[in-house]
């Protein structure tokens, strides 16, 4: 076959077009592909139920947001990996970044794990929005001025609020105080914060017992015996894993709670397991950033709670709100960055756009501060067993914003707690 000059020109033209096609159409094609969002959350062990609750919420958010057009017009899908110990979770994070090539990573509940993950995420320049797990210790060292990592509200917020409500509701009604808190930085910080707030409000308390069960300890009889022997008027416990229902059940059986006031700032995490049969009334009961039964709940919360209860036959807790909040702020960040730039933003540009954007989350409005720490709304109050459920609800709801419970940017938590203007 003879190849004419015209044929050659046609062939060459077609070749050039073919070679250029991937470059010409790559951005358009890339933007038609669904976004991939990595989720890292515990699915078993002491924090397994919390992780599942967050995953369910983020799956609900994915369904709902995708129906409404996705994120900046792009549908998105989830790639879920399990949060376990720091070493293995860092490997899962790297898998999401290097192998799955996700556009962002959400999740993480354990402080120990999140503090290990944060520097790796910064080094890999991967946008990470954490659901939880930001106890104060180590944050300054492990996450100094993060560029890509967004943190939840300080974990001590709920203890600060519980302590303030203990002052509000119980001041003058107790003298002997005991604490039983999980044996790690979260439990220790919460107990210390509680003691400092009592002191600040002039509550003259005698601290008669301190118990530190290891997370996941399912036989708490020795701890309960020690508390019983100390004869406290008030017990403060920031237990929040599967061991909290065990503590309440075994404590009830041992008569520990008779005539004793209780402050459980993180009990909402185990709401479905805290049955009325062993839960006394009048506990200062913390629901953190989502109270499922709020009478003035937003339409978004009502729709979510209704779907959740129908699908899973239990009520959601704050981890659902954290997961939804992470997704909503990420969505807002991508859309704001895309609008400002006129093109699809990089992870760095999304991270720059996210702070300050107010979004509606399940539990209320929230935002990330400039230092990439979340500000959300907290719900606690005295509990009641007079309701349609088989677990307690709140007799009255105290609502505080994170600005009232959280140290301002750059401040030291322990200095702040000594001098901050408290809302009670």
């Amino acid at each position, binding site marked *: 076959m003879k190849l004419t000059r015209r044929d050659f020109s046609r062939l060459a033209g077609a070749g050039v077009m073919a070679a250029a096609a991937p470059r010409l159409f790559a951005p358009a094609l890339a933007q038609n592909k669904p976004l991939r969002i990595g989720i890292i959350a515990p*699915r*078993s062990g002491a924090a397994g139920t919390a992780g599942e609750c967050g995953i369910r919420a983020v799956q609900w958010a994915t369904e709902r947001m995708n129906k409404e057009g996705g994120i900046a017009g792009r549908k998105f899908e989830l790639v879920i*990996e*399990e949060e376990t*110990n*720091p*070493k*293995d979770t*860092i*490997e*899962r994070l*790297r*898998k999401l970044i*290097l*192998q799955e090539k996700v556009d962002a990573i959400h999740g993480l509940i354990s*402080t*120990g794990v999140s*503090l*290990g993950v944060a*520097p*790796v995420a910064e*080094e*890999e*320049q991967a946008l990470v929005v954490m659901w939880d797990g930001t*106890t104060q*210790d*180590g944050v300054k*060292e*492990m996450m100094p001025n993060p560029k890509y990592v967004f943190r939840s509200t300080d974990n001590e917020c709920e203890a600060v609020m519980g302590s303030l409500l203990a002052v509000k509701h119980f001041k003058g009604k107790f003298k002997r105080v005991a604490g039983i808190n999980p*044996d*790690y*930085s979260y439990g*220790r910080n919460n107990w210390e914060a509680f003691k400092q707030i009592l002191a600040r409000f002039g509550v003259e308390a005698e601290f008669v017992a301190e118990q530190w069960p290891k997370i996941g300890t399912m036989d708490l009889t020795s701890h309960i015996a020690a508390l019983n022997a100390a004869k406290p008027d008030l017990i403060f416990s920031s237990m929040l894993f599967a061991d909290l229902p065990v503590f309440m059940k075994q404590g009830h059986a041992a008569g520990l709670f008779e005539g004793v006031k209780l402050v459980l700032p993180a009990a909402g995490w185990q709401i479905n397991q805290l049955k009325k049969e062993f839960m006394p009334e009048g506990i200062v009961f913390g629901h953190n950033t989502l109270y499922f039964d709020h009478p003035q709940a937003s339409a978004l919360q009502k729709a979510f709670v209704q779907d959740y209860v129908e699908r899973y036959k239990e009520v959601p807790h704050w981890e659902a709100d954290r997961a939804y909040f992470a997704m909503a702020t990420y969505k807002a960040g991508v859309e704001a960055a895309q609008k400002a730039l006129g093109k699809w933003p990089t992870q760095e540009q999304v991270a720059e756009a996210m702070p300050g954007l107010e979004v509606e989350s399940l539990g209320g409005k929230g935002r990330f501060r400039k230092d990439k720490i979340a500000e959300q709304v907290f719900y606690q109050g005295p509990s009641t067993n007079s309701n349609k459920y088989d677990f307690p609800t709140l007799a009255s709801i105290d609502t505080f914003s994170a600005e009232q419970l959280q140290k301002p940017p750059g401040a030291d938590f322990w200095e702040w707690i000594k001098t901050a203007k408290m809302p009670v």
Partner: protein
Amino acid sequence: MSTPAIDVGWGAVVQRVTPRLNGLWVLLGLIAVMALLPCIASPYALMLMLPFIGYGITLLGFNLLFGTTGLLSFGHALFLGVGAYTAAALTSKFGILSFELLLITAALASGLISLVIGALCVRYTRIFFGMLTLAFGMLFHSFLFKFYSVTGGDQGMRVLRPLLLGMEWRGGKTAFLTGPFYYYTLLLFALLGLAMWRITQSPFGLHLRAIRENANKAAYVGVQIFRMRLAAFVISAIYGGIGGTILAVTTGLADPELAYWTHSGNLVFMAVLGGSGTFAGPAIGALVFVLLQDFVMSVTQYWRFVMGAVLVLLVVFMPQGLSGTIEALVRRNGGR
């Protein structure tokens, strides 16, 4: 006149024409394949090889104690913890970034600690040795967990990127880990493999095997049981400390879970999986464990169940582990 029968089976032919494959060649072959991996494997696959190298080195030492001497430690993760926290303390608290110094200090720290612990543990054998090592492992874990001001408690301590041969490597952490650090640790793996092979083939190794087979008889012929066991314990700890340093640099964190008893259990799992009766078996076990866990974790949230089932099946149907089973199959096919 009848001619004597000559074994002309395939096995005999193979044995005559090729040098017998031994554990060292298997290990070095594996390392040679790994040296080529950066040409074909993705960065993530290379990242997965780093824990393998860390565990592989640890298991070379672990098997000197378990496979060669017959002492099963349930607390060997303690030395991974010592190596990891040594790296964390030196890089984060003292600003020492030389990887060579980290390795030497980790080896020294592990050696010293194991000298004390070993002096108490190696007087016992079987379950008593296992329980004592478990107890020391948990004691160390409690120390790491409780002494917040020193160790960072549950939040651990950060391990900064080290200098290799005094050189700072630019670029991202992934590029560092999958490039110079990968080759550096792979070379270290090969050298420590050679050293361990030399140890196991030496008169000292022979003493250890004699102790494993029958300690009383060995003592009768003059083997110093306590000294030999203690030396094996210290050497295995040094390997553990070096392995822990590599794991900690890879993850960038030293945390108490590294020294937890479940991690010690993983080491036993890897050794059983690969086969503690062969030189390279535990290292192969480490590789299979790392790849299997990565795969199963991605496929199902019930990955612990799957890993447990694998262990059960292994113990029931392949008590010699992967390498032992392959060796047995090769022998059978070779008519031996």
